[in-house]
């Protein structure tokens, strides 16, 4: 018996040593008894590393995904009241109505409750928000894979965006901002096509729509205008 026998390691310490959570190396080099117990424990636990797990072929992950995809919820996995399209169009419409109503009230009564700049700022920020959301719909349509795309979600969103588009266009025309009004007019026609497209559009129709968005550089122009409107609104 060696001199360290009085301080033998207990089983829990040996287990911790095996899993690397306890440094027993010093003791194990000098205590044959603990070394023997540790070796037996290691043999047992190491043998479980040989437990036979069936091999999966290299395409297994792809197969899992293929089975999983149809089961995934169509829209983003969020609580419905957090989804932007449930409240943003209504908010945008409210802002625009406020703006237009303010303009009309001012014209009729010469009242000065809210400044011209503030109203313009509201419009520009609303326009920017609106264009950002339209951009998402356009991008999703443009990047949808022909033949397999499910555009039901985009169709619904385009439908919701159309109402705000008309109000914004009228407001832009009213302010004499004809470039923005023209862009909104083009956007409205594309959104109308998306909103009226079948849930599973044919590859030819989708391709036509995608080419139209691309040909007119609509996505790019929408993004540029969105950014510019926000910057202008923030400067006012």
């Amino acid at each position, binding site marked *: 018996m060696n001199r360290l026998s009085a301080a033998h390691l207990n*089983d*829990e310490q040996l*287990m911790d040593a095996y*899993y690397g959570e306890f440094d027993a190396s010093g003791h194990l080099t000098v205590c044959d008894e603990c070394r023997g117990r540790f070796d*037996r*424990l290691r*043999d*047992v*636990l190491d*043998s*479980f590393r*040989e*437990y*036979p*797990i*069936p091999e*999966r072929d290299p395409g*297994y*992950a*792809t197969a*899992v*995904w293929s*089975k*999983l*995809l149809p*089961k*995934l*919820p169509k*829209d*983003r*996995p*969020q*609580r419905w009241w957090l989804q932007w399209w449930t409240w943003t169009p209504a908010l945008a419409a409210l802002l625009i109505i406020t703006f237009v109503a303010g303009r009309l009230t001012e014209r009729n009564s010469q009242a000065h409750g809210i400044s011209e700049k503030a109203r313009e700022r509201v419009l520009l920020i609303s326009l920017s928000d609106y264009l950002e959301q339209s*951009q*998402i719909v356009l*991008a*999703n349509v*443009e*990047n*949808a894979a022909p033949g397999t795309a499910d555009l039901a979600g985009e169709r619904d969103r385009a439908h919701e965006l159309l109402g705000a588009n008309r109000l914004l266009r009228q407001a832009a025309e009213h302010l004499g901002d004809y470039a923005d009004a023209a862009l909104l007019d083009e956007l409205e026609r594309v959104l109308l096509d998306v909103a009226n497209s079948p849930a599973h559009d044919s590859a030819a129709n989708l391709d036509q729509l995608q080419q139209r968005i*691309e040909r007119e550089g609509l*996505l*790019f122009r929408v*993004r540029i205008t969105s950014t510019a409107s926000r910057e202008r609104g923030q400067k006012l």
Partner: protein
Amino acid sequence: MLAEGRNGKKASSHRLRCHSINCPKNCGLFSDHLTYWVSKNCWMEWTDAEAAAEARLGNKHAFRVLVERHTKALFRLAFLMTGNEQDAEDLVQETFLRSYKQIHNFDGRASFGTWLHRICVNCSLNLIRARKNRKEESPAIAADPTFHWLDHVAAPTPSPERLTESSQIASMLGPALRMLSDAERTAFILRHYEECSIDEIARTLGLQTGAAKQTVFRAVQKLRTALEPAWGTKR
């Protein structure tokens, strides 16, 4: 036409329509971080956290990245938990489906893999409990005390390989695991195969840290008792 993205990668002209203000890698090749189209040049480089953040926004391609990355490890865990290939495959599907639906609950405190494995363990325990309940309801199965899911792993017919000592030990692994309670088996699998910390095991099993450690220890002790004699004869 080819042109360069912000990180110098070459991109075809359609990719250049880059509107990606939120691309995690800022690669300049994305259309938009919310679109379902993801540049292959970039998404493979996403970390789990980045892909999970995208998946939370509804980007299914980002979720696919996570599926492709974690499927095999998840199958391994599910198989260890159930001992049955078909059950393990079903559990992999169920785990991913559940994780997608609950991804807004993933707060990033643990790694995505840990979070996913926790869901898998819970699904597995539910399955095992359901199987046990059904066994209790089924007199034919309940009357057979030797029936257990691990019997499907250790083939009952001796093969030539089994005649060797090491394979004899290998054939004892299943029955040894079978002796453990569900909690002990889960704790042991998480500790031994998944290399989880005691804290992670405690969180997964809903135990205090000390209790989780004791559960692992009990499992190890039972396995030692079952297998050490075989190692003794080998020496």
